[in-house]
Structure formats: structure tokens, C-alpha cells
């Protein structure tokens, strides 16, 4: 198991998937090291990528001054937490040096947009993750991404 | 005319003088010397020393001059001692000048103040073993609290006939803190332990300092109601100090009021040491027991600090245990000096004030407990 697979297995969102499904996701992710102060996504810009945290810490700054700090391996800066209708709703800034797995927004949406067991597992994990990390936004998990 | 001269001479001190008066006058002069020349507790030793001179001027019985004669001026002033009036007033002043910040910042150091009070109860047993009655033993034991007003207060309540020797012993040993404590401190601690540095205490808010005297008073007095006169005044004085709006009262309590009470207490306690009343076998025993009590209290504090270190992650300097005997602020100063002899950059004074002031509270509780157990 390479490190992206390890990171996916550790993530609350993807850990419900079996090993074969995780292996199928691995090619979608590419690793990138990040440094403090680096902006990974800017609010108002078109959404291109989501980020799966392997190491370090990310600040997801939302509207009205709200924010979430993602600092555990497997935390996911993506979907409705950072994007709405193809536009970034949050600015993602690196707080601590580390590494993220970058995944194309469209590929993830394609994956979760179908009525498959994998999509159901991912969305269930996502709801759980949102409930834990961003409970202030109750409909975050249900809100459509596009 | 010869007869008149003879009668006058027979009324003079030279004629009435007893060797015991001479001894006490010499002791009084030593007290004055120690207070002025050596700066050992001058505010206490000078009034007591001069009181000894006053009390040992031989006077014709019946003239109403001696402290033990009804209607004499000294007797009226001494009323404040025998009825336990002066000690609470002094405690009011002590409260108004004491800063409990270090104690609030590190409450665990309060246990050292509690441990040092064990000396009181060990000496109580020693006094019983030497043939003193329980009430007398309790009064003697309190010398280990190293708190003059507390010792006088309890003695006035339990064994008024021993006020003189107990007060003199208590104040003498308090004045001799810089002489008595260092050898015990060195004996019971290693150099490595004396070098331990204390963590900087946290900042304490004004509000905490204001709430403390109220909580301390309620808790301690509910537990030991007999400590009420002393602790009540101590905490009240401290509240006056911390409340800010009562600063004028606090200033009076910690200056004029405590000074007046100290003068009257020191002078009358000194005057109560009339040679014929004071120089007895019991007084000698009291002095020996007092010294032992003081040493045991110091040792208990030190050993308990070492015991605490067995459990504490961040070790405390065991010298702080010696400050658990109240003697504010002398024993804290001694701790600081002994610590600095090993490491001149180690400042322990601030930390030693915590067990020191908790010792004041502890000895007042101990006095209250002994009083209630003896009545």
C-alpha cells in the first residue's frame, strides 16, 4: 500500500471503502508538498482541485469569518465545504508545512454523482466528517457541489 | 530624719531588688541590644525588652504599680493580653499587609504550611511527657507555630499564668529564625536539592485576591470555629487591602493600629516577666520545649517538601518547607538566603512567601483546634 492509499484508508471519508475501491482511487490523487502561507484555493475563483491532507495543517476560511482548521491526516478540504456551483466558497491556506494529495474536483464529483455503493459510502463518510469538523453548517453535507 | 531616709530607702528598688530581677533586667537589655544592634525583630524585641525592664523594677507591693496588681496602669494594659484582644488586632494588621498572590499562584505550597504545624502537636506531646497539664502543653506546643500573637492568644485562653515565658520564648525564637533554621535546613537537604529552581508563578488577578480572604475565612472557620478571632481578623484585614475601595481602612490597620497593638502587647508581655514569677523551673522547660518545637516544625516542613517531591513532576525546592513555620517574613527570607548561598541567581523569596503565609493560617487553625479540644 503506497502512501496515498494509506492516507485514503485513514480518512474518515474513504475508510469505509474496501481495498479494491481505494486502489481504484489512488491514480486520481497526486502528492504535493506545501509550505505555510501557501494558498491552495481562493474564494471566488473557479473550483479546480480538492485536497486530502497527509501531513501539516490547512485553514479553510469561509464566509462571515468562519473557519475550519484541518490538521489530521485524512482530513479533506473539498466538496461543499469549499465549493458551490463550481466556484470556491472558501480560501484554503497552508498553516503548517506538510503534504496534501490533490484530486481534480470534476473527478471526485463524477465519482460521487453516480448512484453507486462507493458514492454512498463516500457521502456517508463526508457527512460524518462535516458533522465533526464543521457542525455550524448543518446542510453542508447535503448541499450539492455543483 | 534618719528614719525617714531609711523608710524611703526601704521602698527603693535598690533595697527591694532580688537577683531574679537583675537576671531579667539583663535579659531585657540583651533583647534591646539584639533588636537594635543585630536587627533581630526590632519591632518586637525592643518593646518586650523594655517591658522586661519595666516589669522588673522592684516595687513595694500594695502601691498599685506592678502588672499583677489590680488597678495598676500596667494591669489595665495587660488586660488586652490576658483577654486575647491584642493578637486579633495584630492579625488584622498582618492581613492588611499580606499579599497572598504567591499562594494563589501555587496552592500546592500550602501543604508545606500545614506540615510545619505538626511541630505544634509533637511538642504538645513532649510537654505532656514533661509533666505539664494538657492546657499548658497545648499553649507550649503553639510556640512551634512561630507566631507570637497566636501563641499569646492561645496561652491567654488556656494557661494565662504561662503568658510571660511562652510569649518571650515565642518571640525570642522568631527573632532567632536566622540562627535556628539554617543548620536544620542544611542537615536535611542535599546541595542538589537546594539548587532546585522554582517555576515562575502565574499571574494572579485582582478578583482572585479579593475572593480569597472570604473563601479562606468561611472554609477555615466552618472547619475550626475556634480560629474565628484570629482568622476572622486576618481575612478581614486582607479583604480591606484587596478591596481597594477600603484602602484608607487598610492603611490604618497595617500602620497605626498594628503599631499600637504591637507596642502595648510587647511592653506588657515584657513587663509580665517579673523575676519572681518568671524565673521558675517551668519557664526553663518551656524554653527548651519551645526551641524543640521550633526545630521540629522546621524539620517537618522540610521533610514534607521532600516527600512531596516524590510525587511532583516539577520538583519544588525543599528549603521552602522551612518557611512553613509562620514567622512572616523572616523564615521566607532565611530560605532565600540559604538558597542563594548555593546559587546566587536562585530567587526563592517570592516562592517561600506561599508556605510562609499558609503557615500563618495553619497556626491559627491549630490554635483554634487546640482551644476547642481543651475546653
Amino acid at each position, binding site marked *: 500500500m503506497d502512501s496515498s492509499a494509506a492516507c485514503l484508508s485513514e480518512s474518515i471519508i474513504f475508510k469505509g471503502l474496501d481495498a479494491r475501491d481505494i486502489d481504484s482511487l489512488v491514480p486520481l490523487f497526486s502528492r504535493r508538498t506545501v509550505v*505555510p502561507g501557501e494558498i491552495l484555493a481562493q474564494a471566488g475563483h473557479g473550483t479546480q482541485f480538492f485536497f486530502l491532507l497527509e501531513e501539516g*495543517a490547512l*485553514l479553510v*476560511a469561509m464566509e*462571515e*469569518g*468562519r*473557519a*475550519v*482548521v484541518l*490538521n*489530521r491526516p485524512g482530513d479533506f478540504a473539498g466538496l461543499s465545504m469549499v465549493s458551490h456551483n463550481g466556484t470556491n466558497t472558501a480560501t484554503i*491556506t*497552508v*498553516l*503548517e508545512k506538510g503534504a496534501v494529495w490533490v484530486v481534480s474536483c470534476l473527478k471526485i464529483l463524477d465519482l460521487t454523482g453516480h448512484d453507486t455503493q462507493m458514492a454512498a459510502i463516500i457521502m456517508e463518510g463526508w457527512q460524518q466528517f462535516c458533522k*465533526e*469538523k*464543521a*457542525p455550524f*453548517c448543518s446542510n453542508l453535507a447535503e448541499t450539492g457541489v455543483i | 530624719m534618719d528614719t525617714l531616709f531609711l523608710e524611703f530607702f526601704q521602698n527603693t528598688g535598690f533595697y527591694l531588688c532580688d537577683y531574679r530581677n537583675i537576671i531579667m533586667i539583663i535579659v531585657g537589655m540583651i533583647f534591646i541590644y539584639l533588636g537594635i544592634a543585630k536587627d533581630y525583630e526590632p519591632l518586637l524585641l525592643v518593646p518586650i525588652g523594655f517591658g522586661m525592664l519595666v516589669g522588673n523594677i522592684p516595687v513595694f507591693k500594695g502601691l498599685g504599680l506592678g502588672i499583677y496588681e489590680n488597678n495598676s496602669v500596667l494591669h489595665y494594659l495587660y488586660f488586652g493580653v490576658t483577654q486575647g484582644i491584642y493578637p486579633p488586632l495584630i492579625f488584622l494588621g498582618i492581613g492588611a499587609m499580606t499579599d497572598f498572590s504567591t*499562594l*494563589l499562584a501555587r*496552592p*500546592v505550597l*500550602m*501543604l508545606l*504550611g*500545614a506540615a510545619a*504545624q*505538626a511541630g505544634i*502537636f509533637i511538642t*504538645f*506531646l513532649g510537654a*505532656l*511527657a*514533661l*509533666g505539664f497539664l*494538657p492546657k499548658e502543653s497545648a499553649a507550649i506546643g503553639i510556640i512551634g507555630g512561630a507566631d507570637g500573637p497566636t501563641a499569646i492568644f492561645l496561652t491567654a485562653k488556656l494557661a494565662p499564668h504561662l503568658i510571660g515565658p511562652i510569649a518571650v520564648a515565642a518571640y525570642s525564637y522568631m527573632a532567632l529564625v536566622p540562627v535556628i533554621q539554617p543548620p536544620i535546613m542544611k542537615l536535611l537537604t542535599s546541595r542538589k536539592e537546594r539548587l532546585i529552581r522554582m*517555576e*515562575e508563578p*502565574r499571574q*494572579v488577578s485582582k*478578583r*482572585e485576591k479579593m*475572593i*480569597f480572604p472570604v*473563601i*479562606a475565612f468561611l*472554609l*477555615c472557620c466552618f*472547619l*475550626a470555629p475556634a480560629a474565628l478571632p484570629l482568622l476572622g481578623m486576618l481575612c478581614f484585614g486582607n479583604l480591606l487591602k484587596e478591596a481597594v475601595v477600603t484602602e484608607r481602612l487598610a492603611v490604618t490597620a497595617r500602620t497605626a493600629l498594628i503599631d499600637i497593638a504591637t507596642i502595648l502587647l510587647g511592653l506588657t508581655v515584657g513587663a509580665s516577666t517579673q523575676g519572681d514569677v518568671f524565673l521558675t523551673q517551668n519557664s526553663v522547660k518551656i524554653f527548651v520545649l519551645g526551641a524543640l518545637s521550633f526545630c521540629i516544625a522546621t524539620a517537618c516542613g522540610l521533610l514534607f517538601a521532600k516527600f512531596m517531591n516524590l510525587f511532583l513532576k516539577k520538583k519544588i525546592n525543599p528549603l521552602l518547607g522551612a518557611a512553613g513555620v509562620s514567622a512572616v517574613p523572616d523564615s521566607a527570607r532565611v530560605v532565600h538566603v540559604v538558597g542563594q548561598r548555593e546559587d546566587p541567581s536562585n530567587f526563592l523569596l517570592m516562592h517561600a512567601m506561599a508556605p510562609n503565609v*499558609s503557615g500563618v*493560617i*495553619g497556626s491559627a*487553625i491549630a490554635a483554634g*483546634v*487546640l482551644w476547642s*479540644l481543651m475546653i
Partner: protein
Amino acid sequence: MNGVDAVGVLYGLEAINAHNGWAISVVGVTIVFTGLVSLSVLISQLHKLVTLYNNPGRIKKLFALKSKSAAKAGTPKKHLVLTEAQKQICRQYNLLAQTMDDVISLPKLLRMAELSGLKEPHANINFLVKSGILCADEQGYFRWDEDRFIRAVS
């Protein structure tokens, strides 16, 4: 050591036993210890009560936070041991936090830190979050844990 003299005064262990000396001593020491130990326990918690009194909003949050303690799994509870430099950072950010509302917006705090010219604001804010001095609430805002801050810098 033990004995009775000519006038019937008891000495030694016999005197101690006869006057119930052991029991009085044990009771006395116990009461003094109980009093001072309970007082020390009480005053060790005093600053927490004062902090709550100073920030009434925290009482509500305290209960809310307790029920969601799992959500704060990332907040370490053990006592912090900080270096002098870290303590200095805490003090600097405390000053900034004091200029903000009771609830702190992290992006705003970051911006203020950048404007104030503080070094490495991202890493330092991350440090404050990790150390638990900045705690997330359920609304996407953060609060300054005064109690933890005081303990950390003292």
C-alpha cells in the same frame, strides 16, 4: 521515662496516655491538614471561576463544548510546557485576541497578525490551535482559552 512524682504529677508516656495526648495530636494534625488541603484545592480552581465570571458567554459554551468533546479530539488537554519564545508568541497573540470579540474569526486574526508584522503568522496560529489556546466552537469561530493561556505562559 514514665512515672508519677511525689505530688502525683504524671510524666512520660503515662502522662500522654492519661491525657489522651495521642488522639488529640492526631485529630489536631488531621484537622489542620484537612483545612489547608481543602483550601488549597478550592483556590487552585478559583482562577477558573474568575475566568468564567469575566466571560459569562463561556459558561454556555462550556456546556456546549462538553457535549461535543469528541469534536475537539485534536485539542490536547495535558499541561503545556512552552519555550520562552513560544510564551512570547502566546502573549503577542493574546494582545491581538483582546482587540477582537469574545468569538474570534481565525482568518481575521491571521490577517491582523500579518498586518502587525508578526513573524510566521500561519505557523504560530497553527501552534495556538494545536496547543488548545485557540479552541474551535461549533459555529466556525474560535475562542481564546484564558485559563490555558495563563497556565501556559506562567
